[in-house]
């Protein structure tokens, strides 16, 4: 055991309603580049945050060179030689590269800052990774790749022995990716270990030595990269019994109900066009940052658009606004149910009726009895678990909160339902219920668009799949041609 550089032993971490890490154990050697793969919600980010001190594990231990360490916050982690490069980069855009690298450590004990020295030292670290740039440059001016380099230089300046990279390649071009790989190889030579989280299996085979697969908060397995294939990895990530976790459904696809033509959001990189039919579940797959949520927000009129049109039942929407979309019969269940899907301080019943107040109006006034009846109807129909309809939504579990959002849109009797990550952060039982609801909707002749980062969901529920990348639709897979490998391939 004492030969191992870094070890995680039986670490668990739970959040209300969700067990994010379940007795996770793994060990890493110096200079090892370990890939960490798994679907969204598998626990990868949570594990990284525990290692970095952002979260405290409920139980288990972390060991460096055989000695147990207590990482209570990010500064302790940095001292112990652990640095993390988050996806949402941890930099202050208004300040220079040099200052970002040495933020908080610019001088000792109130002595004046020696900027020339700081910049010189910064340049040294930048040179070490081959990033030729003036350390005075404002970080806000850099591309994502540049910012990542700054983060790596920063990690080096803390004498990091273990660098955690969370989806580093998400916004990089091929060139920039090659440069990143060169840096990682260099770090490897210096004996620095890297944990590399990524959805992009091709990259893993290019740069990593070993790979660990996670699923539902557990470690499924670890092996050398040369001993596995992409398909094997996908199988481990996704689990074998795909068909059994999804309800059966008959596919009756009818006429077109929605058509989107050349839609592009303000600041978007590409136009999209697609259509949707009654009785159809259209899955939208892609990596985080591919632009799926942004596309739906543009469709629904939540964000400004730069062009394009949306037709419902052949009629063009009167304007690009949620009002027009809702009137035309489109419902939009957003990704962020707490901040956008619900009025979190209000009761279940007010949330359920808020999208169509007309349903509780009697003689021009809102009627309390009607509001109660409408709320009860949906609470029973979708089995929302709550002691009372007046309970604040804040106090419900994730699954029940999502059900309230569903109830709200049910109340509008919309024909087209857009769902963005409908089962995120929800337990297995509630997930199944949501799938049943979706199937029920399409069997009534409605249409569902489902954005999901969980491949099993896409595979198990969709009649047709659109794959998006960099704001554009890059592939359309229908029926029998839908499969995990193709989707992953198109996604990057």
């Amino acid at each position, binding site marked *: 055991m004492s030969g191992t550089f870094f070890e995680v032993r039986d670490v668990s971490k739970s959040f209300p309603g969700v067990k994010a890490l379940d007795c996770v154990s793994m060990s890493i050697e110096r200079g090892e580049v370990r890939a960490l793969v798994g679907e969204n919600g598998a626990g990868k980010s949570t594990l990284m945050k525990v290692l970095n001190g952002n979260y405290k594990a409920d139980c288990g231990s972390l060991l460096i060179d055989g000695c147990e360490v207590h990482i209570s916050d990010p500064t302790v982690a940095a001292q112990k030689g652990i640095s993390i490069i988050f996806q949402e980069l941890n930099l202050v855009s208004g300040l220079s590269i040099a200052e970002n690298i040495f933020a908080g450590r610019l001088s000792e004990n109130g002595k004046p800052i020696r900027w020339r020295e700081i910049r010189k030292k910064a340049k040294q670290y930048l040179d070490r990774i081959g990033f030729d740039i003036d350390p005075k440059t404002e970080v806000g001016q850099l591309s994502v790749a540049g910012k990542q380099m700054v983060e790596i230089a920063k990690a080096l300046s803390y004498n990091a022995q273990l660098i955690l990279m969370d989806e580093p390649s998400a916004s990089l071009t091929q060139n920039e990716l090659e440069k990143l790989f060169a840096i990682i190889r260099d770090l490897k030579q210096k004996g620095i270990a890297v944990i590399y989280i990524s959805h992009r299996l091709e990259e893993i085979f290019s740069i990593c030595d070993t790979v660990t697969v996670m699923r539902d908060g557990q470690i499924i397995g670890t092996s050398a990269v040369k001993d596995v294939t992409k398909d094997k990895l996908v199988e481990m990530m996704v689990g074998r019994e795909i068909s059994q976790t999804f309800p059966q459904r008959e596919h009756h696809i009818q006429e077109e109900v929605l058509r989107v033509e050349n839609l592009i959001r303000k600041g978007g990189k590409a136009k999209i066009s697609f259509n949707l039919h009654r009785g159809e579940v259209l899955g939208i797959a892609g990596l985080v940052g591919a632009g799926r949520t942004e596309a739906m927000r543009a469709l*629904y009129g*939540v964000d400004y658009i730069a062009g394009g049109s949306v037709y419902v039942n052949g009629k063009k929407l009167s304007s690009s*606004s*949620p*009002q027009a*979309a*809702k*009137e035309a019969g489109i419902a*939009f269940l*957003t990704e962020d149910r707490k*901040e*956008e*899907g*619900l*009025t*979190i*301080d*209000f009761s279940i019943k*007010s949330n359920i009726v*808020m*999208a169509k*107040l*007309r349903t509780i*109006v009697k003689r*021009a*006034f*809102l009627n309390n009895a009607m509001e109660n009846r409408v709320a009860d109807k949906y609470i029973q129909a979708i089995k929302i678990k709550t002691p009372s309809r007046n309970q604040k939504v*804040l106090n419900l579990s994730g699954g029940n909160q999502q059900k309230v959002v569903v109830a*709200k849109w049910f109340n509008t009797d919309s024909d087209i339902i857009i769902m963005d990550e409908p089962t995120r952060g929800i337990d297995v039982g509630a997930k199944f219920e949501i799938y049943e609801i979706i199937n029920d909707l399409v069997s009534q002749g409605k249409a569902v668009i489902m954005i999901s980062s969980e491949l099993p969901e896409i595979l198990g529920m969709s009649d047709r799949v659109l794959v998006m990348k960099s704001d554009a639709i890059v592939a359309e897979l229908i029926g029998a041609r839908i499969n995990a490998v193709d989707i992953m391939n198109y996604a990057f």
Partner: protein
Amino acid sequence: MSDVEKSKWTRAGGWARDNTNLLLLVALIVAGALLSENFFSWTNLMNLMRRISVNGVMAIGFTMTLLVGGFDLSIGATLSMCAVLCVGIEKSSGSAALGMAAAIGAGLAMGAFNGVLMMVTRGGSGEAFLITLATGMVGTAIALTYCSGLDIYGVNAEWYKAIGQGNVASFPIAAIIWIVLMVVMQVIIKKTQFGRKMILSGANKKSAFLVGIDVNGMKLFGFTMAGLMAALAAIIMTSRTTAASPYSGNGADFDAAIASIVGGNSLVGGKGGMVQVLIGVMIYGLITNILNLTGIDSVVQYIVKGAILLLAICLDKLNRR
């Protein structure tokens, strides 16, 4: 203690926390009764009602801005502006009705101006504070320019004076106006689709926008209402004092804010209503009354009221989650 007894206490504690405003009101009424023997006499109570009506109407307007997720520091300046306009035009044109119309027009204009700026900046309460701080200063300057810094005297029409000074069945007309306005607003807020949409837009602008509510339009409405209320308050006030001073609104926004927040309206938006306004205005009126009775310097009263506001905000924050 047994579990049943313990849960009764926690429920009582919870009720007390949710209804601190009521408890405070009761405490103040008791204090008032102790300090003054004819506290419960009809004349005294009616005088109290008359006195708090102006602040009461102002508090309605301020609350409307809170409900849409904003804040309004300019209503004091609007009060001054409308007051001098009302009396000034009444004097120069001879028609009280014209003066009133001018005041109402100015109030609506000021409120709408604030509302438009809020729409343009997509503002929340932080932006509202800064914007209304500035528009308030502009409004005060307008008031001062209009009357060259001097008070205007001389409201003539009897029916006009009756608004502030008269009674109907020995109940002050001013208070009746205030109560009627509160009832109307409460009905709108609680019982109409429009009102419900307004509350939702203040509570969470993103979720309200996603269900098709015109969040920006609601802000415009809330702030315009605040301007209108300030104008109506100005009418009541000038009819009572038969004079208008460009400084009459100084601190009136603060008074309205304290009354509204102490009564239970939340800074966070979308929570509260006219019942809270009623309680808050009465609390504020009683506190002022008691402070006056005990002979505390008016400037020290300022500080006491400031402390109360801070306490109320702390409580609001604690109650929020």
